[in-house]
Every structure is written in C-alpha cells, then in structure tokens.
C-alpha cells in the first residue's frame, strides 16, 4: 500500500518532458467509462432489483480548451431485469414476473480543470442531461410499458490522472437529478420517490492529451 502511495506521489510530482509542452488550444479526447450509481429511489430499486446500486456503461468525447475548460458529451446505459413486486409494511414481495428497465442518459457537461500538478487534474462541472427510460414486463400491454424521455441536471467533480502520454484515467463523483419519470405510478409512487437520478462513482479511461 505504501509503495502504491509513493508511486502515485512520484507520478504526480514528476514533470516529464511531455508535460512541459504547451497545451493545445483545443484537444478532443474520447473516453469510455463505467459507473456504479446509488439511485435516489432506494426503496423502488431495492424492491425490483434487490439493491439500489447499479452499474452504467458508456463513453463519450471531451473537448478541452487549453486544458482548462472542458465540454463533455457522454452517453451511457443501464439495463437490468428484476421482478415486479409490491411493498407492505416495509417488506417487499416479488411476484416472479420479469421486468426490464433500460436507462439511457445523454449528458452534456462543461466545467473547469485545475492544474495542481502535471499529472493530477481535478475538475468540476455540470450541465443538462437527456434521459430515456424504458420499462417493459411480461403480461403488460404497450400502454402499460413505459418509454419516456425527460431532462435532468448533472453536477460532477473528480480527478484526472495522466497515466501515459496519450492515456489518462479519471475518477469522479456524478450527481444527477431526473424528475418526471418516477413517482407517477408503480412502486416509486407508493414509496414517494420521484427522482430517477442518484449519485454515481465513475471511472473513465481517456485517450488524448
């Protein structure tokens, strides 16, 4: 553990020849990401899937200006099959009917990158998101399935590490607020939960300088 810590410190403090180059005015950097999201609708997701922490996978592209400002376009997807259920006095009863939820976020965020060292770049940002939510289950009519798009807001903050000259990694915390999908019916209505968003821990692998 100490060795790992020392390695990170050396990486952070080192000023390799590449880092001393002037940053490009615009840099276009594609990335892939995976995240683990704690949904705000805890009761709802626990009832259907057994846990409110679920993975998203996706990617996007980030454009930086002089390595200070950035705009990021990201798309990701969550898809999982649980069971329809109901709750009674705090207990969940699943009825064995498969239910599949697909959430496809498309987010545009912008923010600022702080240069504390050549290899470690904290950043914060935010922006709007567009979210497509699909819910289908067996024995449901088209009218009973859900397929909607709503907008939400995103705030994010994290740290980017430069691993190699053309490859970086970022870890951030991503908060999304997505009203208008939950709370109108289903378990989310019973639970009084109206936000499809939540807090996610994300890891990105970024290609580019």
């Amino acid at each position: 553990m100490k060795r790992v810590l020392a390695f990170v410190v050396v990486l952070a403090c080192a000023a390799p020849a590449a880092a001393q180059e002037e940053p490009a005015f615009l840099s276009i950097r594609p990335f892939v990401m995976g995240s683990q999201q704690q949904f705000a609708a805890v009761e709802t997701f626990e009832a259907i899937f057994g846990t409110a922490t679920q993975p998203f996978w996706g990617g996007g592209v980030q454009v930086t200006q002089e390595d200070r400002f950035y705009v990021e376009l990201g798309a990701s997807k969550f898809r999982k099959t649980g069971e329809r259920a109901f709750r009674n006095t705090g207990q969940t009863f699943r009825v064995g009917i498969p239910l599949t939820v697909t959430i496809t976020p498309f987010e545009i965020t912008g923010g600022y990158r702080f240069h504390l060292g050549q290899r470690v770049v904290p950043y914060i940002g935010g922006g709007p998101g567009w979210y497509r939510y699909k819910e289908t289950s067996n024995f449901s009519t088209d009218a009973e399935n859900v397929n909607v798009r709503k907008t939400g807001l995103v705030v994010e903050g994290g740290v980017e590490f430069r691993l190699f000259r053309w490859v970086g990694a970022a870890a951030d915390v991503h908060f999304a607020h997505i009203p208008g999908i939950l709370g109108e019916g289903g378990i989310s209505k019973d639970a009084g939960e109206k936000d499809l968003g939540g807090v996610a821990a994300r890891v990105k692998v970024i290609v580019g300088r």
Partner: protein
Amino acid sequence: MGRSRALLSVAALIAAAVTLGVRAQTPDPNRYIVLEGVGLSAVNEGPITDESHTPRAPEAARRAALRAAIRTQRITSSGARYTPGRLIVKFRESATDAARLAAVASASRTARIGARPSYANFDVVLIDPADDGEDAAKRLATSPDVEYAQPPYRMHTMFVPNDPLYKPSVTFSPGQWNLPVIGLESAWDIQPQAGSTITVAVLDTGVAYQNATITATVPAFRDERGVLYPALGRITVPYSAAPQLVGAGNAGRIVAPYDFIWDRTTPLDFDGHGTHVSGTIGQLTNDNIDTAGVAFNVKLMPVKVIDSVWDDLFGAPNFGDDETVARGIRYAADNGAKIINMSIGRTGPPDTAPAVEDAIRYAVGKGVFISISAGNDFEDGNPKEVVAEIASRVQGAVSVAAVDRNVTAGDHKCAGTPTSPTCHAYYSSSGSWVELAAPGGSERGFGNDGFIWQQTFDFRLTDTFLFPPSQYRAPRFDVMAVIGYIGTSMAAPHVSGVAAMVMQQGITSPAAIEAALERFALDLGSAGRDDQYGFGLIDARNSLRALGVAR
C-alpha cells in the same frame, strides 16, 4: 273386532310416529349410513334458469324455517339462536382442575366438563338442555379461571342461492359475467397453473365430491306452520360427485375431507351451497363443459360445518354453530389448507365469537389466508356481522361484500341503472368490517342475467320438503345442473380463488395476500376505503402483476 283392529292400528301408528319422530342429538349409528364410492356418476342437466335462489326467495326462508322447526335450538330474547345443552368454555392456562370444576359447578348444578372435542382450544361444558345457556355462560364468565364462555351460536350460509357457460349466448344469456369483471382472463395468462399447489378449504354445507349410496331413516316432522310431513321411513338416496368439481382427470383433487356435523370423514353436501361455492373457487375449466372457476386447478378440502335440512332429517348429531365452525377452521389449518373460504356467518347479539376468533387467529398464524362473506343483511337492519367483523381485525383474513352486474368488464366502472344505481348488491351488508368487494350478483334489474352460475344439485330433486306433503318424497343427489345463486357467499369464493393464484405466485404470507388484494382493488364508491365496497372490487390481474418501477 273391527273396532279393536282400528284401535290397534292407531296405536301402531302413534308408536311408529314416536319411534320415527325427529329426536335430536342422540344419533342412532344405523340411522344414517354412507356407502362411499357406491353410486353412479351424476346426470348433468346443464343450466336451469327457472330455479330461484336469492337472498329473499321464499325457498331460502323456508329452508331456514324448516331447519328451525326440525332441530332443537334456543332463541334468546334478542333473537340469537344457539345450540342447547352445551357451552363453549375456554379456561385460563393457570386454572387448576379443581378450579375448573368449581367454576363449572357455579354455572349450573347439572353442568359438567365434556371430553374436549377435536380441533378445539376450548372445552365443551355440557348442561341440561332445558337450562338457559346464555345465563349459564354469563355465570361461568365471571370466574377468574375462565377466559370466555358462550353458548354455541348458530351459523348459517351467506348465500343466497338461483340458478353455462362462460360467455353469454343465445341459449344462456347470463354468461359468467362475474369472472371477466375481476380481470380473470388476463390473470389466467399470468398464472395458468391457477393454484395447482394450493389447497383451499371450503367451510360450508359440504361438497358433492364423491359418489355414494346413503341409507337413512327419515321420520315425520312438522314444518314451521305445523303442517305434518309423513315419515319416509328407511330410504336409499343416490349421491353423485359434481363432475365439474371432481372429474376423471383430476384424481387427488379432494384433500382431507371432514364433516363436523356428523363427526365423520364424508362431508357430503345435502344443500348445494357448498358445492356451488366450491365451483366458483375451482370449477374445472377449459374443458368445454358448463362453467369456469376462478382458480380451477386448486385442491379442495371440503369441511362441513353447516347443517342442511336433510342433515337434520337424517338425524345429524351436531349443528352448524360457533363450535363446529371454530373446530373446522382449526382442522383446515392443521391439515394443510392454505386458504379457507367461509361463505358463512351470523349476526349478533352476541357481537362476539371468541372461539371463532381464536380459531381464525390460529389459522392465520399458521399461514392460512381466510376469505369470509360480509353478510346479506343490508335490507334487514344491516346488523353487525360477527364473523366478518373478526376478519377486519385480523391481517390475513378479509371480509367480502358483494357487487352486482353494474360492474362492467374492462373499465371496471359502475354502469348504474335506474333500478340499481350503484354496484352495491342490494343485500350486501355494509359496515366498518367490509374490506373487499367481489361479484355476488343480484336479480334486481338483471333477472337471471344477474346471478352467479355454477354446477350444483337440481333442487327440484333434492329440496322435496319445499313441496306440499303429498308430493314430499325421498331426495336424490345424483342430478346436477348449473344453477344461479346470489349472495356474499358467492363473493367470498372469488377472493379465495384469486388469493390461491396470488399464493401460487409466491406470496405466501396471509397478511401480504390481503395487502395485495386491497392495494390492487379497484376503488368503488367513495374515494378510499368505504363501508359498502371496502377497498374496492378485487382485481385478479393487477394483484398477480403487482407493480413495476414507474407503472
């Protein structure tokens, strides 16, 4: 000589009348014999639409009056009926034998503790049948060693019988309107097993579940108007299983049958009510014959706890009362039933039935869901329904009111008519105890189209005591027909059937089943729970589907 012969004949007739006269409670083992499995299959006549079985039908009143006339029972000043000669008594655990004997002695000089009956957590104290049971019970209840004491108050079925036929057709206009209106067609898609692993106990007048030949001695009797009906003497009665309940292809459907009226294992239905109720729960379905049932694959446990006129005439030793019902509930719970249907009940006073309540709580505690009819007394002063009221205080037992045909399929709305402006069936008792509603039917404004139809006996061949004495004859219970009934007795089995399907879906807790049925009921009447419909009309499809994330 001729005069002597005449006198001798008169004496012989008097002796025969005395010998054959109805005497209660001392059963002659040879008076009623059932040869199980000996008999032919039933004749099935199909639908009969000219037999009236409604809550207020003269025939229904006549059956009740005849039972009262034939059997000994006591009526209190408040009108409550109870079985004489015995008290239901629950002693406290801490009470010593001496204390129990002292308490009993204080109640009546003739009182003694009888052998504890099977499936009872209470004792039976035998008293002189001439003693006032209520007074004796009150004296016993004052003892600190007694938890409760009561006479066994009489119970009765909650139906209200009439008389294939799932879809309406030219030859049979009613159809089974009562099944699609609770979302059953799509529920069967979700749960095609329709309760195959679930045993539903039917606590009722028995069930026509096997072929048999019955030999019985039927004495003369006077009806409620004093009209003498002649003794039939020794008669042989053919009895057949209802082919739409017990078909050739579903051997093993009947589980642990028991008869608490006769204290034996052959709970044969001599009334038709229990067979009709069982049909609504689990009539064989999708076999191109007659009608459909709700959970058509369930196993059925016939538990006879209500006596009928023929039971009384055959000399049954027990009545349908708090004692038999409480024992029947415990029997069902101890013998594998997962759901109990009780299309039976009584009104007060007294407004309590502690033995029955104990039994209901015991059964629910063992994981049994109970559906109880809410009562048919709305137009008779709408008194409190004692057994149904217990259900409202026990999570896992529900009381079920009746709706009429104004409930429409698809949108589940009440399409009122001038003669019947709401969905509330005119007879269905209302009160704080009503938790759910289901189709019970009504003839008002609908005629035959408003009944709940299932297979049971052709009453023209069974209820011969409704005819004048000259036409009175031995009954035969081997001719079946599809008959329409009306009542909350018909509503409760809809709930039992849907509960069986929910249970097969994996929801085994009685409280959770109740919660599901109430949560997904279609709200009728005032918003939220109300006294006429409870939480509303049961919705089988939505109860089985439960909820998604957002819808």
